[in-house]
């Protein structure tokens, strides 16, 4: 008796642990490949030139003339976390590849501050090595997007793609839930923050989330699809479409996603779908790898087939039985 109770407890505990272990493993899978500072040719230069200050929350301010030092707090905005920088696609760069030499001097001069930063297209455009990303197409799409037109280009690629931490997550993570949340944070950094929005635009912008309450269980939806899946114009020639349209053109039909020909196969799951054909046995099976189950878009072919078959057999049986009842005329119905 006691033994069996002990067994039940043990099973439950093991089960809970295995749950957490898989959750953690899944999260780690979704993180980009670690590259590491050891490999960077510029690690030392970066450290002495810039990261002594920008890589730390507290840096030391020195007055060379008076020989005084003081501890200062680096503002979050100017913080560049070294571990994350060396984990990004541009890990092998020197800070000075993108920033002016003038920044070596502190206080930073006005010339330094007037540097024009590179755009992605300046380095990646028309380079066959990066053809798979379609930078030229993305750039053209971006220039049609509301972000470009409504702000005269103030919202550059860098405003969404952090210059120091960027990774092409759509490919590395295969669209897991972690990825969706991070991708959406990119947008929510501005759009869920009325103060930030107020700084960028004069218009009276509202926080976006209330505009999405037509979705049942909004929170869950916004962890299962990306903002851009509804807000960009579909484009087959790039993996991630970039033409963010005005809000009134956004997807709002449930069956755009919840149906056999779900748009999600051409947006969120494009990469997974391109990599491997379908997960057999399910309609739009690639979505299932994402711990998602999208009603109407995913359905087991086997269950459908078996279910409909048995229903059909039942009806056929009833039909045959009815015919017999009519032809044979059971006696008890005739008598009595």
């Amino acid at each position, binding site marked *: 008796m006691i033994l069996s109770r002990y067994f039940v407890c043990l099973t439950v505990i093991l089960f809970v642990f295995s749950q957490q272990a898989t959750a953690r493993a899944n999260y780690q899978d979704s993180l980009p490949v670690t590259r590491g500072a050891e490999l960077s040719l510029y690690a030392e230069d970066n450290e002495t030139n810039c990261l002594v200050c920008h890589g730390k929350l507290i840096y030391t301010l020195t007055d060379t003339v008076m020989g005084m030092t003081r501890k200062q707090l680096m503002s979050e905005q100017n913080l560049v976390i070294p571990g994350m920088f060396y984990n990004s696609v541009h890990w092998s760069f020197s800070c000075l590849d993108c920033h002016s030499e003038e920044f070596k001097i502190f206080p930073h001069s006005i010339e330094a501050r007037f540097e024009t930063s590179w755009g992605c297209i300046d380095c990646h455009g028309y380079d066959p090595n990066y053809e798979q990303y379609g930078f030229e197409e993305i750039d053209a799409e971006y220039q049609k997007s509301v972000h470009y037109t409504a702000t005269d280009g103030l919202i550059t690629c860098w405003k969404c793609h952090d210059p120091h931490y960027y990774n092409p997550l759509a490919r590395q993570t295969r669209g897991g839930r972690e990825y969706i949340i991070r991708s959406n944070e990119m947008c929510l950094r501005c759009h869920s923050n009325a103060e930030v929005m107020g700084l960028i635009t004069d218009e009276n912008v509202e926080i976006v989330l209330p505009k999405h309450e037509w979705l049942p269980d909004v929170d869950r939806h916004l962890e299962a699809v990306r903002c851009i899946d509804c807000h960009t114009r579909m484009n087959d020639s790039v993996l991630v479409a970039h033409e963010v349209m005005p809000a009134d053109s956004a997807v709002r039909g*449930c069956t755009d996603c*919840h149906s056999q020909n779900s748009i999600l196969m051409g947006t969120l799951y494009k990469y997974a779908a391109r990599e491997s054909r379908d997960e057999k046995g399910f309609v739009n099976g690639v979505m299932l790898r994402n*711990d998602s189950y999208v*009603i*109407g878009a995913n359905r087991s072919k086997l*269950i459908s087939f078996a279910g409909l078959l048995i229903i059909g057999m*039942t009806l056929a049986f009833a039909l045959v039985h009815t015919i017999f*009842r009519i032809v044979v005329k059971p006696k*008890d119905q005739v008598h*009595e």
Partner: protein
Amino acid sequence: MSKSFYHYPAWVRLWHLTNAVLCLFLIVTGFSMLYSDPDNALVVKFQRAVSIHNVCGVLLTISYTLFLFGNLFTSNGKHYLLNIKGLGKRLWKQGRYYAYGYFKGEESPFPVSSERKFNPLQQVSYVGVMYFALPMLFITGWALMFPEFILKKFLGFSGIFLTDQFHVILGFLVVIFLFIHLYVSTMGKTPLSNFRSIITGWQESH
């Protein structure tokens, strides 16, 4: 020879009507979601299907709970107590009767009486549906409404996926039950007499 007796108490009839209507709504909206397609006029619009399905699911849970109480505290419950001993034999007898004896004009092997409301096949299917399929449907259905309580992973599968598959399988089972149930109900004294009795309560023995 035929004598009438009061067979279905009022609360059973009221419950049954509610149950039948809600189940029909649930089946139609459930299938509309499973086979969701904006161009198919046969299925209910997705958004409407979701809301109707949710509301009916909640109502059905309530009516089911009342039914459970009814079976606990009235004599109706005794018809749902399965006697395992010799069950296989009795099922076979009843099945044979439907398939063969019925046409030969044999006497029904388990005639309806106030002591025995259901024949063995009815009893097994009613117990199966009322004490197994529906409760499991409620559990999985409510879980899908509050997915934060569903285990994230179970044996390597997504919890929400498994819950949903189970819900769908049970839904199919209830549909299959319903078709059999409806058909077998036409095999009373006359094709319509059982339907009359589940509405009026009176049953003629046959």
